């Protein structure tokens, strides 16, 4: 048998946005003792899971690839608590949990992320307003800190490190194990309700009226200006209760090659958005939906990031405080629709309170947009940055590849200073860093 595996290989890697791309020493994590040796022997380390953060969060000189460190360590079916190594993916957890009547308490819009990555990014889902971000389902984790010690962290133990690791982008240490709490479900299906909103005013009202739904998110057409500015479809969901816990084997399709950059242009994006809005005919639509389709619509198209062509793209996600969300979003949407660089998929959501002190979410509205990478879109993003800042908002580090350090420091202000204190305590020698760290924190 021939196997070409090597433990440490120099190769080019990037985040999900395919930009930036850098050359790094990638170390495949397989065993704990090898990992500990690696951590003690090099500087400038960052842990990486499936590389689904969009920008430069998981890029550095030395990258610890955790995608094969994926072991289940135990399950308490009474309490629904699952113990795993940090390279286990949410996809694997769902395959395990659903037939046993459990589901992830918190899940982002892709199941192809690792538990370690979900903690480092403190990911959120369609239920943030009700159930918080990923931190709310994590009971404890083990992390390797700067001096090579393994610390167990929870709300009670090493709680400063526990809290600042959520949203800490891997900069507080290397997460190796975690205990997460699953929630009980009684169906693989979601009872879905879609409501069309003609403009921003209406979608805001709908979000507030439907705040008791467990899951809510809106798709928004950001090319529409004028009276229809902010026209959108609010998508609501609850776990169904029909007792069907059978997983279906689904076929995934992959984007076979990089699309030439002209495929996604102003015309096609406009046409797509119009079609998407018209797909739902009436004001209301109700149906039973497979969980995969509701939570992970893009996961069925593997490597969809290639749609934006070889140059890649960036995702622009920010949140604005609730009381200033309407004015801020209006200004931002006007700027975007005026520029004509509409996003193929734009997603709006109302967050609830956030428990983790150094994390992206805050009570208010968040908008996520994709832009193909170009001079023009980067300039547009810089204009938007200023508006976000003006309204007291902030950007999501897991999506960011381009923001300036000044903007970031103003946005995160005090909480960043507290974060740096915790980092100093557990990683005084700056063993853990990333390209994003040098771009934003320095």
């Amino acid at each position: 048998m021939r196997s070409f595996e090597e433990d440490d290989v120099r190769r080019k890697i990037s985040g999900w946005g395919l930009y930036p791309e850098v050359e790094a020493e990638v170390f495949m994590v397989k065993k704990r003792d090898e990992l500990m040796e690696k951590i003690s022997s090099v500087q400038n380390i960052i842990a990486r899971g499936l590389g689904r953060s969009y920008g430069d969060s998981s890029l550095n000189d030395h990258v610890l690839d955790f995608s094969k460190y994926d072991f289940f360590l135990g399950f308490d079916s009474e309490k629904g608590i699952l113990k795993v190594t940090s390279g286990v993916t949410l996809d694997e957890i769902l395959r395990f949990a659903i037939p046993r009547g459990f589901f992830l308490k918190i899940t982002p819009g892709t199941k192809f992320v690792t538990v370690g990555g979900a903690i480092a990014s403190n990911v959120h889902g369609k239920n943030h307003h009700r159930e918080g971000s990923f931190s709310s389902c994590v009971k404890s984790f083990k992390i390797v800190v700067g001096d090579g010690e393994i610390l167990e962290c929870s709300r009670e133990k090493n709680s400063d490190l526990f809290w600042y690791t959520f949203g800490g982008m891997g900069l507080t240490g290397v997460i190796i194990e975690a205990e997460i709490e699953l929630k009980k479900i009684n169906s693989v299906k979601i009872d879905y309700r879609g409501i069309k909103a003609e403009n921003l005013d209406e979608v805001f009202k709908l979000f507030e009226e439907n705040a008791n739904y467990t899951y809510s998110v809106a798709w928004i057409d950001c090319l529409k200006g004028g009276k229809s500015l902010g026209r959108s479809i609010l998508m609501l969901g609850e776990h169904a209760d029909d007792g069907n816990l059978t997983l279906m084997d689904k076929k995934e399709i992959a984007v076979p090659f990089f699309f030439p950059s002209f495929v996604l242009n102003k015309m096609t994006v406009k046409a797509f958005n119009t079609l998407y809005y018209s797909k739902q005919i009436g004001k209301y639509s109700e149906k039973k939906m497979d969980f995969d389709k509701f939570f992970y619509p893009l996961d069925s198209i593997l490597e969809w990031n290639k749609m934006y062509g070889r140059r890649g793209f960036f995702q622009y996600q920010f949140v604005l405080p609730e009381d200033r969300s309407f004015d801020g979003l209006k200004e931002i949407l006007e700027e975007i629709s005026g520029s004509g660089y509409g996003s193929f998929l734009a997603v709006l959501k109302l967050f609830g309170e956030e428990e983790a002190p150094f994390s992206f979410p805050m009570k208010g509205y968040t908008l996520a947009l994709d832009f193909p990478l170009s001079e023009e879109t980067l300039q547009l993003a810089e204009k938007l940055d200023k508006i976000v800042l003006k309204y007291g908002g902030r950007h999501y580090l897991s999506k960011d590849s381009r923001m300036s350090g000044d903007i970031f420091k103003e946005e995160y202000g005090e909480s960043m200073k507290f974060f740096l204190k915790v980092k100093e305590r557990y990683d005084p020698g700056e063993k853990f860093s990333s390209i994003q760290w040098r771009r934003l924190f320095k």
Partner: protein
Amino acid sequence: MKVLVVGANSDVSRELLNLFAAEGDDLILLSRDVENLKLLKKDIETRYEDVKVEVDYLDVTDKNSFNPIFDKFKEVDCLIYIAGYLGDNERALLDMEEAEKILNTNFTGAVLFINHFAMEFAKRGSGIIVGFSSVAGDRGKSSNFIYGSAKGGFSVYLQGLRNYLFKKGVKVLTVKPGFIATKMTENMVLPKALTASPQEVAKDVFRAIKKEKDIVYTKWFWKFIMLIIKLIPERIFKKMNM
């Protein structure tokens, strides 16, 4: 069924173990790295509650480590020998230790270990033996003929054993993988179309076991690639850079 796996820590092995566990088969995992086997045991027993997993130390290059295993594990229905060591051909030409390690892991150790279970299975009149050889054993090439000769020897052993055990109700499967991809090879110059993922290899092998095949190439077309390679006359082959 009780399945014993020698060299249980490889990527292919892990995929294969999941396939057996999903059918509720109990597993015995052997390797030098018992710590990692314990992790694997936890993983399998968590994912498949009704599967029992035992782990133990075995060094295939040290026949003194065999007897405790033979004494401890009597009830085995399926033996899978997946341990392998590619080594460095150039180094093996100069360094006896390296050459010996290649020969022992891929051939000598395999034969000595399998012999015991072959006789047990024969006595009982049932059982399956699966040996992981390689396409490299089909023809000696300048780039890896130490490894290739060990695998070639192993293939011939399995072939003979199959004929020997046929009338005694014991099945022998020879597995001949071509290139196997791992995550780290994605930027290397491996011909993508010829390369199988560990998962694909495991699926092919699992299917071949169920179908009681004699030999399985994985990916399947390696059978034809090797057929052509074997047909090239030696006087031409020796001038080729392979």
